[in-house]
């Protein structure tokens, strides 16, 4: 386990160094934009992995939570005139509170029942945003002020990279703490964890809240970057992307899931010419990874490097 952890840290460090110097290599600004969106997906996939990979609670509401963060930030800025950081924070807090509610609502649910409840919740949110046309502009899309006035692609790229790294570091800090151990104990066996004094109810709710709050932050940043948001960002198709990203990267580790987000966003853009077929490709890839590399691509790769290192 330690070897895998070391692999994740070393591998993550190398990727981070690569991403930091990439814009200096003269890469087209189109790809800079693509990677910036990739950081959004990386954060979203990591936040999903925090819940599913570490606590064992399935949720299909992550994209909806991102949308909630996005709309809350945009609307509070527009209607209350709050400063942008406060609006972003409002999105994070509201997503966190809604996460508490979902966590509480689904406390006794497992597996398919839990999954279906989160799908229903996600659809309720999306349909509400679509229907409240007067407030959200519905499917036409809501215009959102930029995050940085006059900010160029590189500014956004480095800002999103920094936020993603800080959020991943926070997640790792949490997961390495005793709370992370409680999360994993709950994932392994709720009754066993409770018999040892772990407050299963509290930590399950906290996990939903934390995961949703990170998704809310990702959504808020995304909204102020793309400057036009629609309810489709809360759709189940978007959730499917996030799920495929985390599964292909390796959803048992937040770093691998984040790398999966980045990789698939590049893949989505790289395969744009094949249209909807790329979704079939990603679906198949997710199935094959689950079957042959359940630790995900990065989990398998870094895990094997670490083991080789130990053998030497």
């Amino acid at each position, binding site marked *: 386990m330690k070897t895998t952890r070391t692999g994740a840290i070393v591998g993550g460090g190398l990727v981070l160094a690569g991403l930091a110097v990439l814009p200096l290599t003269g890469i087209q600004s189109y790809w800079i934009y693509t990677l910036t969106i990739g950081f959004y997906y990386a954060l979203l996939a990591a936040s999903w992995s925090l819940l599913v990979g570490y606590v064992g609670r399935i949720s299909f509401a992550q994209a909806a939570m991102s949308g909630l963060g996005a709309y809350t930030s945009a609307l509070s800025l527009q209607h209350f005139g709050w400063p942008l950081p406060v609006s972003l924070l409002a999105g994070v807090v509201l997503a966190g509170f809604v996460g508490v509610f979902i966590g509480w609502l689904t406390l006794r649910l497992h597996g398919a029942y839990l999954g279906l409840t989160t799908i229903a919740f996600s659809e309720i949110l999306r349909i509400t945003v679509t229907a409240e046309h007067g407030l959200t502009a519905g499917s036409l899309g809501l215009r959102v002020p930029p995050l940085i006035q006059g900010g160029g692609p590189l500014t956004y790229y480095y800002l999103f990279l920094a936020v993603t790294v800080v959020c991943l570091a926070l997640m790792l800090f949490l997961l390495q703490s005793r709370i992370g151990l409680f999360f994993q104990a709950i994932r392994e066996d709720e009754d066993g964890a409770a*018999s040892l004094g772990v407050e299963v109810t509290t930590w399950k709710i906290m996990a939903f809240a934390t995961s949703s709050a990170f998704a809310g932050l990702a959504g808020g940043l995304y909204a102020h970057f793309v400057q036009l948001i629609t309810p489709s960002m809360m759709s189940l198709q978007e959730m499917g992307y996030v799920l495929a990203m985390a599964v292909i990267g390796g959803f048992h580790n937040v770093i691998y899931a984040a790398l999966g987000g980045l990789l698939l966003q590049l893949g989505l853009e790289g395969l744009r010419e094949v249209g909807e077929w790329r979704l079939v490709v990603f679906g198949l890839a997710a199935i094959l990874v689950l079957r042959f590399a359940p630790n995900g691509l990065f989990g398998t790769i870094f895990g094997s490097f670490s083991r080789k290192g130990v053998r030497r």
Partner: protein
Amino acid sequence: MSAQLTIKGLRKQFGGLVALNEIDLEFQAGELVGLIGPNGSGKTTLLNIIGGYYAPTAGTVHFEGHRINGLAPSRLARLGIGRSFQVTKVFQRLSVLENMQVSALTDWGISRREARSRALAILDDLNLTRLAEERAGRLSGGQAKLLEFGRIMMLEPKLVLLDEPFGGVHPELKRFMYDTIRAWNARGVTIILISHDMGSIFGLCRRVVTLSYGDIIADGDPEVVRSDPAVLEAYLGDHHAA
């Protein structure tokens, strides 16, 4: 002397099935009690109610003077009630050492360093030190049972509920488990032990309670319970009891 654990009028129904029928029991601190009975007699149900996993249909459970039925298992664990399960519930993908530390770390006053050193000391007592960094899922059945013992020891319990701890355990390991249970008990820990292994029950316990169809049919000295006609009938049928 007032009892450490008092059970009064305890009834548990699952639909039309009465699993426990108006049970009254008292356990003094430091007792080592065997709980026996044929399959379906209500032994595990009783442990599940004491441990907070089931709510009783009627009746009360008091531990050290406090009513505990209705409290969550996590709360009971912190009050000093530890338990093992028929099918071990070790955390398969966590290391043995991490498994051990979970209960200690639920106390926010204990640092990770302290929890680790306590865990290592107990693993040493259980001869599991060499497996400390191993994933618990790789342990043999007997080693997993020992790990459950270790996790309970980390709770520093006052009352331990053991549900079939010897099932599928190698005889040599079983003897080691006997010693561990005796050592625990010698330190004043109350132990309620369920086992189908009568040798273990009669070898370890100074009191045996027998359940049959949710009723207590015998309670007392192991030698007396062993020859009680009601117990023989419950286990072997009318013919043998006569």
